[in-house]
C-alpha cells in the first residue's frame, strides 16, 4: 500500500541520481518506462490505467510481498501527442522508486497481469479509434507463471491482429526483446528500434550456440543494424531513447487516428502551386545514367520533409511519408541510384507492405516510376520473385485510396503494370517528357524481334516506344507534364480526389500471395 502511494506521486527526474542501480545502468543509456512516456506525450496529458494491478502468481515464492509490485511490469494509459489521442504501454525494464533501492520488475517480463493491462488499452483504442504505441522492453515470458504468461501473449497477438487495419499500431523497441515478445511488434504496422540498446530475436546467442553452434553477438543476431538493413524486420532505427521518442512524436503527426479518419491535414506554409524548376533537368540526358529519386521526392514535398520508412533495406525502392499542401501522402518511388531501381524480392515486399498500410488508413499514394523491370537470375527465381513480386502488384491493384503516378523515365515490362499503372485503377497517371513506356529496352527488344538482322531497327524502336506518346495516345497516361509543374499537379489532384469513393466486390478478405 505504501508503495502504491509513492507510485501515485509525480516522480521528479532528479530522483534518478539517488538511485545506485540506475547509475550502474547508465552505460546502457536507457530511460525508465515513465521517463519514456514523459517524453513521448504532451506535458501533463498522461492518464494512467491499472496502477494497482498486481501479478497473481503464487509459485516459486512469487506471492511474497517482496515480489509484488503495484502495476506489475508495465505502465499503461492514454495521452496526447500534439493534442491528438494515443494509447500507450511502456514495459518496465526498471521501476523507479526512490524509496526502494536496486530492483527491476522481472526485466519487464510478461505476466498474465501485464498482458491483461496491455489488452485493456488495446481494446479501448480499437473501440475509440486511436493508435496504440508500444514502448517495448521485455525479456519475454515470465517463466514462473508458465502457461498463464503464454496465454497473455496470445491475448495480445489476437488484439494486434484484430486492431490491424483499424487503428495504427506502432512498436518502439527500446531494449532486448526475446521470444514471444518479438511477435507482437512483428504484427504491428511499424517497428522502430534504438541503436545499440535494443535487440529482437526469437532466441538469444546462448541458445543459438547450443543448437546450431554459431557464434554470434546480440548485436549481430538482432541489433538495430541487422533488422533495418538485413532482415527488414524493423522500419527504422534511432540514435538513442530520446532521439527515438522525439522522432516518434513527429511520425505520429503523419498518421490518421484510425481507418475511420481521413489522412490528417496540417497547417502548411509551402505554396501548393510552387514550381520546381530543377525537376526539368533532374533526369540525365543519357538514359543509362542514374539519379537520386530522393532529390525528386524532397523537392516536391512540403518543406522538403520526407519521413522515410526502411531507408537502409531494399534501397532500390523508396517508401515513406510526406505532406502535400499539408495533407499526409505515402510516397513510393523506384530508386535508379541503387541497382538501377529494379524490382526484386525485398523491394517488392517492402513496397507492398507500405502500400497496404496507406490503403488501410486512407493515405493517398504517390508513385514515382523509373523501373527497368524485375531483377533476373536464379537467386531471385529460387527465392520466389514471382510470388513476392505479385505482392506489390496485389497491393497496388487492391488499393482504393487516391493514386497518383508519375513516370519519370523507364516503365518497362511487367514492372510498368505493377507500379500503380492506369490499369490498376490509377486516378491520375502522368509521364514526364523523358518517360519511356515499353515492354523492354530498345536493344533487347530489337534482338528478339529481328534476331539482330535489322541494322536500323533499334533507332526505329527507340523512336516508337522510348517516349511517352504511345501510352498517352491510348489514354494509359492522362497527360505528359512539364516536370517543374509536378507538385502543383499533384496538389490539385489531391484536392479533387479527397472525396474519392471506390469499392471492390464483397469478400471476407482477399488472398494476397503471402
Amino acid at each position, binding site marked *: 500500500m505504501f508503495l502504491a502511494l509513492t507510485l501515485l506521486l509525480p516522480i521528479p527526474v532528479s530522483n534518478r541520481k539517488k538511485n545506485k542501480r540506475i547509475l550502474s545502468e547508465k552505460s546502457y543509456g536507457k530511460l525508465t518506462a515513465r521517463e519514456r512516456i514523459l517524453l513521448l506525450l504532451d506535458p501533463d496529458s498522461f492518464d494512467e490505467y491499472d496502477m494497482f494491478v498486481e501479478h497473481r502468481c503464487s509459485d516459486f515464492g512469487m506471492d511474497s510481498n517482496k515480489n509484488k509490485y503495484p502495476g506489475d511490469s508495465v505502465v499503461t494509459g492514454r495521452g496526447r501527442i500534439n493534442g491528438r489521442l494515443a494509447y500507450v504501454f511502456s514495459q518496465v525494464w526498471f521501476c523507479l522508486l526512490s524509496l526502494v533501492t536496486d530492483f527491476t520488475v522481472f526485466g519487464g517480463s510478461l505476466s498474465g497481469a501485464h498482458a491483461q493491462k496491455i489488452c485493456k488499452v488495446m481494446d479501448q483504442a480499437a473501440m475509440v479509434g486511436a493508435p496504440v504505441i508500444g514502448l517495448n522492453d521485455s525479456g519475454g515470458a515470465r517463466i514462473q507463471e508458465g502457461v498463464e504468461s503464454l496465454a497473455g501473449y496470445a491475448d495480445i497477438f489476437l488484439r494486434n491482429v484484430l486492431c490491424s487495419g483499424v487503428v495504427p499500431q506502432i512498436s518502439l523497441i527500446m531494449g532486448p526483446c526475446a521470444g514471444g515478445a518479438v511477435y507482437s511488434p512483428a504484427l504491428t504496422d511499424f517497428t522502430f528500434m534504438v541503436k545499440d540498446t535494443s535487440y529482437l530475436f526469437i532466441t538469444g546467442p546462448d541458445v543459438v550456440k547450443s543448437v546450431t553452434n554459431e557464434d554470434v553477438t546480440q548485436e549481430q543476431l538482432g541489433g538495430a543494424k541487422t533488422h533495418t538493413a538485413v532482415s527488414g524486420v524493423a522500419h527504422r532505427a534511432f540514435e538513442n531513447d530520446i532521439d527515438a521518442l522525439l522522432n516518434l512524436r*513527429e511520425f505520429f503527426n503523419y498518421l490518421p487516428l484510425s481507418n475511420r479518419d481521413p489522412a490528417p491535414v496540417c497547417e502548411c506554409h509551402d505554396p501548393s502551386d510552387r514550381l520546381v524548376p530543377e525537376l526539368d533537368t533532374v533526369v540525365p540526358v543519357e538514359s543509362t545514367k542514374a539519379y537520386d529519386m530522393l532529390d525528386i521526392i524532397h523537392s516536391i514535398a512540403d518543406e522538403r520533409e520526407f519521413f522515410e520508412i526502411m531507408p537502409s533495406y531494399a534501397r532500390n525502392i523508396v517508401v515513406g511519408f510526406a505532406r502535400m499542401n499539408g495533407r499526409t501522402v505515402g510516397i513510393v518511388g523506384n530508386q535508379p541510384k*541503387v541497382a538501377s531501381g529494379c524490382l526484386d524480392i525485398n523491394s517488392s515486399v517492402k513496397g507492398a507492405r507500405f502500400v497496404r498500410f496507406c490503403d488501410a488508413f486512407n493515405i493517398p499514394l504517390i508513385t514515382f516510376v523509373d523501373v527497368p523491370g524485375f531483377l533476373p537470375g536464379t537467386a531471385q527465381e529460387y527465392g520466389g520473385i514471382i510470388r513476392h513480386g505479385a505482392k506489390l502488384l496485389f497491393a497496388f491493384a487492391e488499393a482504393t485510396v487516391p493514386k497518383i503516378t508519375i513516370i519519370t523515365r523507364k516503365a518497362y515490362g511487367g514492372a510498368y503494370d505493377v507500379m500503380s499503372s492506369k490499369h490498376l485503377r490509377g486516378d491520375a497517371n502522368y509521364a514526364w517528357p523523358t518517360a519511356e513506356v515499353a515492354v523492354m529496352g530498345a536493344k533487347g527488344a530489337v534482338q528478339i524481334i529481328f534476331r539482330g538482322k535489322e541494322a536500323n531497327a533499334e533507332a526505329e524502336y527507340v523512336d516508337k516506344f522510348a517516349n511517352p506518346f504511345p501510352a498517352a495516345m491510348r489514354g494509359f497516361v492522362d497527360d505528359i507534364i512539364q516536370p517543374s509543374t509536378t507538385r502543383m499537379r499533384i496538389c490539385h489532384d489531391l484536392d479533387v480526389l479527397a472525396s474519392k469513393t471506390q469499392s471492390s466486390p464483397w469478400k471476407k478478405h482477399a488472398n494476397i500471395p503471402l
Partner: protein
Amino acid sequence: MVLVKVEEEKMHVSGGRKACVLFISRFLLFFSLQTFEKLLIANRGEIACRVIKTCKKMGIKTVAIHSDVDANAVHVKMADEAVCVGPAPTGKSYLNMDAIMEVIKKTRAQAVHPGYGFLSENKEFARRLASEGVTFIGPDTHAIQAMGDKIESKLLAKNAKVNTIPGFDGVFELLSNCSPLLGYPVMIKASAGGGGKGMRIAWDDEETREGFRFSSQEAASSFGDDRLLIEKFIDNPRHIEIQVLADKHGNALWLNERECSIQRRNQKVVEEAPSTFLDPETRRAMGEQAVALAKAVKYSSAGTVEFLVDSSKNFYFLEMNTRLQVEHPVTECITGLDLVQEMIRVAKGYPLRHKQADIPINGWAVECRVYAEDPYKSFGLPSIGKLSQYQEPLHVPSVRVDSGIQQGSDISIYYDPMISKLITYGSNRAEALKRMEEALDNYVIRGVAHNISLLREVIVHPRFVQGDISTKFLPEVYPDGFKGHKLTDLERRELLATAASLYVAEQLRSQRFLGTPRIPIAKSKRSSWELSVRLGDGNYPIAVSKDGSSFSVEVDGMKLNVTSEWNLASPLLSVTVDGTQRTIQRLSRNASGDTRIQFLGTVYKLQILTKVAAELSKYMPEKAAEDTSSILRSPMPGAVVAVSVKPGDTVSEGQEICVIEAMKMQNSMIAAKTGKVKAVHCKAGDTVGEGDLLVELE
C-alpha cells in the same frame, strides 16, 4: 534585364544628364544593330550568359557551345542555338578548337566572343578565326602574343614609359651579383608562367641561387620554356588594375580602376571600383600609362592593365590581360558602359563613342565572387554537388548577379566552382557595402558548401571598411585560417532567442490540424516553454513565452522580444530581435532538435530540446562516430566500367571514384570524404559482387 536595370540606375545617379544619355543610348542602340548577325560564345557559365544578354539587347543571334554534361546548362537554354563540342573535360570540349571551328562553319557565326579563360588569350585560336574570316571579339593576335609573354610585355611597357618593377629583363642568366642592384627581396618568375607556377621569392643570395634552379626546372616542365626573369619583390602591395578600351582607329580610353587586393592563393575574391587608395592624380597617371601601353601595342577591344601599388602610391606595371575580366561589372556599374557591347562594336570596326572626359565615376560598386567551396579549409577548397535550392537576392535594391546556374544545376569537378558574381552599388562605398551585407544574407544556396560566410566577414571587417587592405589581407587577418563569424555576447543572445522562438513556432504549428477531427484535439493552453539550447560547447537554459504573435525570450537573464511572420517554409526568414531586423536562414531541422541556422553569414549548429529532454539526455551514451567514409564497397553486383582514380590521387567529397554497370545502367560510385586514395581493388572490366571492397581512402 539586369543590365538594363544597371544602366537606368546609373542614369538616375547622373541626374541632370539623364535625358541626354537616354537619347544617345537609344541612338547608339539603333546604330549598334549594324554589327553582327550571329555570334558564337566560346565559353560556358556566367560569362557566356553575360555575353548572350548583351547580344540579345543588340539584336544579335547567339550560338552556345557546351560539353555533354552541360547540355542542360543555363547558357545553353539562353542561346538561340547550342551545339555540343565534346565530353566534359575542358581539353575535349571548351578548348577543342577543331570542334569549335566546325561549329562556327556549321552555324555560320560571324564572330566569336571568347569570354575569359579557355581560349580568350589563345593566339592560335585568334589566328585560325582570322584565317576563316570570322571576327574574334578581342585584340588582334599581335597584342595577345606581346602581352602574353611576361618579358616581352615588360619591355614594351618600359618603352611606352610605363613604370615597371625594377629587375632584369630579357633572358636571365644566373648572376650571383644581380640582387644587390635591386635590393632584397626579389622575385624569380618564369617568363611564360602563370598561376604561380615557377614563381619564387628570395630573401638572400643563397635563396636566389636555389630559387633559380627550381624555377627553371618547373618552368621547363610546365611551360616547355625555361626562361626566367628576376625583379624586385614588392612586399604587401595592393593589386589595382586599370580597365582600358581601345578601337581599331588608334583611340584608347581608361575606364578607371578596380581594386582587387582581397585574394586567396592568387585568386581574387572581393573587388571594387573605384579604389579607396587612389587620389585623382595617381588615378590619372595610372590611366594615362595604361592607355600609352595600349596604344603602343595597337590594342583594340577591352583590356586590363594590372599594377602593383606600394604603400607610398608608387605603382608598377604587372601585366596586361587581353580579355574581358571576371570583375568587369564593377567598372560597368560606376561608368554606365556595357563593356561587352563596346567590345562587339569595336570588333566590327566602329570607333569609340566616348571621350575620356565622358567617363564618370558614379558612386561605388563592390563585387563578391561566390564560390562553391568550403572557406574553412585554406580560405576555400572546392565543393561539388547539386544546388538543391538556389535563390538570388535580386529583391534587394541595387544588386546585380551574374550567374550561369540555377536551382538544380550541378557544380561539377570539371569546371570552375564559381556560383556567381554578386555586385552591389550605391552612391558611396558605405552604401554599396551595406547592400552587399543585405544581399549576402538574402542569398539562398543549398546543396553545396559556399563562401558566403567568408565574404560577409571580409566586407564588414574594420580594416576592409577603412580601406586598409593588401593582397595579404586574408592571411594577415586570419593567421590561423578562417573560422567563421565570432559571435559577440549580444549576437549570441540574438541567435539563441531566434532559434528558440523558431522551435516554439514549429511546435505550435505541429498542433494545428485543419478540418474537424472525429476525436477533438486537446488544445494546448501552454504559453511558456523551458528549453535548453546547445550552441558550440555551451548549454543555455532559455525561457520562451508567447506574447501575441511575438515571443518574449529570456537568455542569460536578459529578456528579448522576437517578432517574425514565422513562415516556416520560406528559405529566408526576416526576424526582428529587440528592434534589430535580420534575415536569417534555417538550413535544416529534425525531430531530435538539431537545427542549422545561417546567421550573419555563418552557419551555426544548435540543438534545441525541452528542459526535461535535455536533462535526460545526460544519461544517453556517448557514441563514437563510425567511419565508413574511407572505404568504398560495391552496393550491388555488376561490372566495373571505369575507375577514375589511382593510388595516391587526392579525391574530394562527392567525386566519382568508379562506375559500375548493373542492369545495363551505369552507377557512379562517389567518395564519401575528401582524401588520398590508399588502394584500388578493382579495374575496368572486373565483375564485382555486392559488398566487395573497391577503393580505400587514407
